[in-house]
């Protein structure tokens, strides 16, 4: 089969690999009909996530048709499914608490030796990501092997729902939703969202659905801010205004009730400490740039909530711990517990309350995936979301 393959920093190619097969009883094989490039794929592309190896197949947002099932799978051949990017066994302590991204079993034991010293305990397996999260081959490919297929995939019964309307159930829609949920929004709240990328926009959209009175989205790409405005949000361009001052003024001197960092480890910014972090990342010292998060902590009102869907992988320097403690902020974060949200969000899509297709700017055949990575990375204003269609 053909698959988008990592060869090194900023070097991805479509290569030929052996087709996947059933390995364990609960496996299913999915023929991919649509798959997307995620912002967190760009962290891999940029080489800032440890544990990726040349030859790895990327991609963790995908859907398709069931073509083969193991004896323990509950899926049937021919079913259309969207597959969560988190791999979860469904039966361990964490899965039973619906903390699916903390699954105790899906990350193969021999892969946990890197992340265990770094994080204390290893997290679940993820598709198409680092070997720290299992090294599972991803879905930017013609076929993918899905472990625990009786737990993760959600079957799309309604043939009228085209792929593009449901594809983002695999990651960014539940990720945006959980980000808003972690912001613990109450009626009358003002929510500020850093980053008008896919997760930030979906978090903003979710916050609106959860009855936030105001949602303010911060970015520097004019077109992405237009998309936020189209969702009924207010916008701030951080290249043009002092963000903390602006937020304070816009909220009558109080600050936002909740702040959402949908930027993560590769934040832009002009602060001295951020430039130092960039230099360290460049020479391979790998400190996470966290300038968006640092700014969000300072901007948040006293006693407010901080939600961090943005991806971080390692350590960061000069963290405003004092602001966090003294202001009594509450933090919610984590890789998304995708399986917890798919059914509810599919319902909202079917009712027409959520439309995610506004985000898609480009549709490419799988063979052109490397161009998709390059442009999504370098022309972020226009390239807001790339959907790949294997077999076209």
């Amino acid at each position: 089969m053909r698959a988008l393959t990592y060869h090194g920093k900023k070097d991805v190619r479509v290569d030929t690999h052996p087709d996947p097969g059933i390995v364990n009883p609960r496996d299913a094989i999915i023929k991919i009909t649509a798959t997307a490039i995620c912002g967190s794929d760009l962290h891999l592309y940029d080489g800032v996530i440890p544990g990726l190896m040349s030859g790895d197949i990327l991609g963790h947002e995908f859907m398709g048709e069931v073509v083969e099932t193991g004896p323990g799978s509950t899926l049937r051949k021919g079913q259309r499914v969207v597959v969560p990017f988190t791999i979860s066994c469904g039966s361990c302590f964490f899965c039973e608490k619906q903390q699916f991204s903390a699954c105790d079993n899906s990350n193969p034991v021999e892969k946990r030796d890197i992340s265990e010293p770094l994080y204390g305990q290893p997290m679940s397996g993820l598709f198409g990501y680092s070997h720290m999260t299992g090294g599972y081959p991803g879905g930017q490919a013609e076929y993918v092997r899905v472990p625990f297929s009786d737990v993760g995939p959600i079957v799309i019964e309604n043939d009228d729902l085209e792929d593009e309307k449901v594809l983002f159930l695999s990651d960014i829609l539940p990720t945006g939703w959980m980000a808003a949920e972690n912001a613990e929004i109450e009626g009358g709240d003002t929510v500020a969202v850093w980053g008008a990328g896919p997760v930030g926009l979906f978090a903003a959209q979710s916050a609106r659905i959860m009855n936030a009175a105001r949602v303010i989205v911060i970015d520097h790409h004019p077109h992405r801010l237009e998309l936020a405005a189209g969702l009924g949000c207010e916008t701030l361009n951080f290249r043009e205004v002092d963000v903390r001052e602006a937020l304070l003024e816009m909220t009558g001197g109080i600050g936002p009730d909740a702040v959402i960092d949908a930027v993560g480890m590769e934040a832009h910014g002009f602060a001295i400490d951020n430039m130092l972090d960039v230099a360290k990342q460049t020479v391979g010292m790998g400190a996470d740039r966290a300038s968006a998060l640092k700014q969000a902590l300072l901007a948040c009102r006293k006693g407010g909530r901080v939600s961090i869907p943005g991806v971080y992988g390692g350590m960061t320097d000069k963290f405003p711990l004092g602001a966090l403690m003294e202001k009594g902020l509450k933090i919610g974060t984590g890789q998304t517990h995708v399986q917890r949200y798919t059914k509810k969000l599919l319902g909202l899509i079917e009712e027409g309350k959520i439309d995610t297709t506004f985000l898609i700017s480009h549709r490419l055949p799988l063979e052109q995936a490397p161009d998709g990575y390059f442009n999504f990375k370098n022309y972020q204003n226009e390239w807001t979301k790339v959907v790949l269609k294997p077999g076209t």
Partner: protein
Amino acid sequence: MGLLALARSSAGKHTPTATGNAPGRTARRERFGRYRVVGKTVTVSKPSRDELFAFWRDFTNLPAFMENLNAVRPAGQGRWEWEIVAPGETSVKVVTEIASERAGELIVWRSVEGSSIDTEGRVAFRDAPGGRGTQVELVVAYVPPAGGAGVAIAKLLQREPEQQARRDLRRFKALMETGEIPTSDNRIETEKA
């Protein structure tokens, strides 16, 4: 032989020692006479403690989750022959007998007199607090062979036994909880090592 070392490793006792309530093997500097001791604990949420015990007590099941084991066969008179993978093309055979046993709680095995490795292992099953399943604690003690005991065995024991114990126990947990051992391999390799 070794029982003293293993007794020190058992949790659940609240006599004050140098390590407080922590297992003796977690001490930063501790020797158990001639024995090296490795051990790990996992919590297994299902099936029941008795079922976990029964699965382990049938030693022929162990190679399903113990990476270093080719096979375990009954050897008569309540003894078991363990065929352990060794570096190179070789394997090492160790015959063990049950040293002590409490149904649903504890299995202790040890190598019989004259074995190529002087080793003792114990697995304890305890109810986890709060109805969270069963805590399974595996402790293995062995004497690193002195010179002349065989290069293969020496190499074998250098293969990060701590890591082996951790991985084996987690594979056991995964197999019990999910019915399979997760892998990121995309297909079953036709040529099996």
